[in-house]
């Protein structure tokens, strides 16, 4: 069970045994995965930096302690460069917590210690989790954790989030550290810096400066130009005398490092301290590093000629599979809901209620559930992309191309996430530092067709193209949506989001074999969410659509057709009249009235009123487009009995050109209600929502108009 409630709600009576831990580490070292293996929580895990963009609290018990672990976004250094890094920075500085678990990647200790050494002047107790120790051992890296504990004065515990090794030891170490006094930092600098620190400490001591932090840490923070420390000491009378000492000290250190940047000097100090530590504690078996597997794979996958074709081939295969394999169980699901509707319908005597259940709920929900197999395959594809480390490679390959369109290479990550669902995509745009880049990306994410739009595409591709072509059509839809997004990005960059380019510096993670369990879990969660939505939101929407399309009852119309049907000469004519009545009834219903009212707007795009209505209900959720079509064509059914599946109804009732233009609108227009809300929040104001609405509506209308007229020429 995952518990992400506030402490206040779930706080336990025994305060003394409550340990609040901040989980800190560089990106992609397995923080979320560590929490998952400690607590059986199910936080989202991937193999690229920036999976966790907001803090998450997880509660669990271990021995006599109640643990609250706060999973913070990964940060390379203790800075506030991007929004996610700011979350971590501000949390560590301002919030109340008992200690820090610093998660480090054992296979890359030196780089990871860079953050550790910055944390060591925080005046908080730390426990270091040497994560991925199993992987390190495989690579021949042996870390002497005990010696490291001695050298740093911080408990270091070897763990593996993957195999769950060392988890208990880690929690024991946390509990012990919690009971202990303050750790004394054993961070040592070069002689030049130590001299200056000693002088400042001596000065602070002489004046009995009152501080929570140790004098040594205050001195280090002052030398590092830490704003908060400055603010505090600035109001103290000793500032007047301290200031010239600090100026001298900084000059001295900068001179020593031949640099005019004190932060750079300190980074070098930390680096040499860490080199020392690593040299002491690591015993590397294989001295001469051969080409790692990752480098071998990279030689192929990011090859300067073959890289992009390989990527396109992967995407094409994904959509082929989505259609081909997804189509196999479709027939059975369709058959099941047909049988289910008939069976349930037979038990309901009341005409209206039977129609509500069978034509409304079952037809609507069934139309959405039909596409579960396609959705599952798409989600597996995205999960593979996320967890293997390939995503960053594609960002690398496409950065030059993206850059031409004014997008940042790292925009690729939210954009790909957008193929699954726009909501997490909007959230993950936080990895972009610059607000302009972020807003631009937010506006473009909608062009990446989300999983909920897949049913519409599969439905129309299946209705208008041969099975051999349908997979290609899906691929073309997705790719052209993405290309259109790039063009839109360029236009926005030249008009609304003008500005200088941000630097692009990104880590390329090691390739990892995706764990089946992880993929299974991610896909299961997302599929269950889809099904849950079908059972709740879509069912409710289907009921509403059913109601709006059945009422008001028009007695005159009913009577006029009743007599016609009675006077019918044979069975065929009777059916003919029945169908005519159904169509006439539907057209005068509330939904028909709305559809007829808005039809003129959509006529230039080739839509009849049913399609217009489906588009409008799709504003709530894209699956509703399919369920609305399902309900509308189940009711006004003028196709013969043995041929009434939704796909056939669509291909018989909708002209080819209208279908193309419908797909174009679905590709571009406003994302669903939930996504729009998240968009508004992430963009930072309701006005952005209106911009998005106007931007997407105009683009969709314009593009669909062109597509409709071109398609008309060919059909």
């Amino acid at each position, binding site marked *: 069970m995952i518990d992400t409630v506030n402490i206040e709600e779930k706080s336990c009576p025994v305060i003394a045994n409550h340990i609040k831990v901040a989980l800190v580490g560089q990106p992609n070292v397995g923080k979320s995965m560590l929490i998952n293996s400690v607590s059986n929580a199910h936080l989202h895990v991937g193999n690229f930096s920036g999976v966790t963009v907001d803090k998450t609290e997880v509660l669990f018990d271990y021995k006599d302690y109640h643990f609250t672990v706060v999973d913070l976004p990964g940060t390379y*250094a203790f800075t506030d460069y991007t929004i996610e890094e700011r979350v971590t920075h501000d949390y560590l500085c301002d919030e109340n917590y008992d200690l820090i678990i610093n998660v480090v990647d054992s296979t*890359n200790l030196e780089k990871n210690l860079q953050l550790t050494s910055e944390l060591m002047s925080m005046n908080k107790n730390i426990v270091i989790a040497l994560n991925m120790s199993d992987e390190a051992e495989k690579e021949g890296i042996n870390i002497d954790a005990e010696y490291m504990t001695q050298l740093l004065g911080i408990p270091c515990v070897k763990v593996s989030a993957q195999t769950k090794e060392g988890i208990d030891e880690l929690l024991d170490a946390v509990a012990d550290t919690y009971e202990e006094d303050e750790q004394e930092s054993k961070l040592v600098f070069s002689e030049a810096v130590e001299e200056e620190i000693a002088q400042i400490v001596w000065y602070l001591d002489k004046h009995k400066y009152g501080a929570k932090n140790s004098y040594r840490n205050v001195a280090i923070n002052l030398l590092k130009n830490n704003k908060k420390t400055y603010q505090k000491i600035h109001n103290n009378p000793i500032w007047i005398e301290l200031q010239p000492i600090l100026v001298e000290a900084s000059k001295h250190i900068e001179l020593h490092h031949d640099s005019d940047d004190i932060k750079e000097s300190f980074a070098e100090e930390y680096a040499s301290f860490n080199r020392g530590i690593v040299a002491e504690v690591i015993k590397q078996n294989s001295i001469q590093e051969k080409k790692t597997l990752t480098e071998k794979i990279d030689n192929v996958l990011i090859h300067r*000629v073959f890289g992009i074709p390989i990527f396109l081939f992967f995407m094409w295969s994904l959509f082929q599979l989505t259609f081909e394999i997804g189509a196999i169980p479709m027939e059975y699901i369709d058959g099941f809901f047909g049988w289910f509707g008939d069976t349930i319908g037979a038990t309901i005597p009341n005409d209206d209620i039977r129609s509500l259940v069978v034509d409304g709920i079952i037809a609507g929900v069934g139309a959405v559930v039909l596409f579960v197999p396609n959705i599952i395959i798409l989600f597996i594809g995205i999960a593979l992309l996320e967890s293997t480390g390939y995503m960053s490679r594609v960002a*690398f390959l496409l950065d030059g191309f993206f850059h031409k369109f004014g997008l940042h290479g790292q925009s690729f990550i939210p954009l790909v996430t957008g193929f699954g669902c726009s909501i997490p995509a909007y959230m993950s745009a936080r990895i972009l530092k610059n607000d302009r880049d972020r807003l631009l990306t937010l506006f473009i994410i909608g062009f990446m067709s989300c999983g909920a739009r897949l049913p519409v595409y599969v439905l129309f591709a299946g209705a208008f193209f041969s099975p051999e072509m349908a997979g290609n059509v899906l691929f073309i839809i997705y790719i052209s949506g993405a290309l259109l997004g790039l063009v839109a990005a360029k236009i926005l960059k030249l008009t609304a989001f003008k500005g200088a380019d941000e630097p692009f510096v990104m880590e*390329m993670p090691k390739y990892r074999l995706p764990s089946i369990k992880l993929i299974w879990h991610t896909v299961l969660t997302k599929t269950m969410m889809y099904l849950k939505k079908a059972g709740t939101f879509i069912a409710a929407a289907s009921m509403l659509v059913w109601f709006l399309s059945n009422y008001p009852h028009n007695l005159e119309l009913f009577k006029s057709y009743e007599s016609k049907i009675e006077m019918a000469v044979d069975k065929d004519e009777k059916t003919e009249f029945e169908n005519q009545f159904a169509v006439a009834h539907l057209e005068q219903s509330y939904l028909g009235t709305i559809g007829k009212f808005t039809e003129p707007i959509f006529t230039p795009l080739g839509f009849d009123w049913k399609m217009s209505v489906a588009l409008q209900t799709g504003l709530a959720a894209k699956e509703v487009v399919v369920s609305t079509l399902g309900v509308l064509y189940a009711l006004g059914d003028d196709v013969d009995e043995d041929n009434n599946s939704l796909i056939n109804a669509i291909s018989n009732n909708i002209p080819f050109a209208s279908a193309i233009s419908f797909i174009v609108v679905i590709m571009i227009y406003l994302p669903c209600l939930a996504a729009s809300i998240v968009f508004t929040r992430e963009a930072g104001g309701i006005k952005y929502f209106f911009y998005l609405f106007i931007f997407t509506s105009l683009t969709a209308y314009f593009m669909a108009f062109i597509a409709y007229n071109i398609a008309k020429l060919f059909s």
Partner: protein
Amino acid sequence: MKTLLDCKKACRVKVLKLNAATELKQRLISFGIMKEAEIEVLEHAPGKKTIEIKVGKMRIALRDQEAALIEVEKL
């Protein structure tokens, strides 16, 4: 003056100086790209717009503009 951008594939160099503005410099440093660091050029993306380098054990992607700010000497 030679920069990282001038380096060919599989070239190994040592960083002499970072000519970046404060913020970008911090960013580079936090990735381990700092004075004295050893860098290996792994791959160029199409058009040499983006390059992949290796610092320590970490692989990093940089854009041409950023690479041009890193002064290096051949090892």
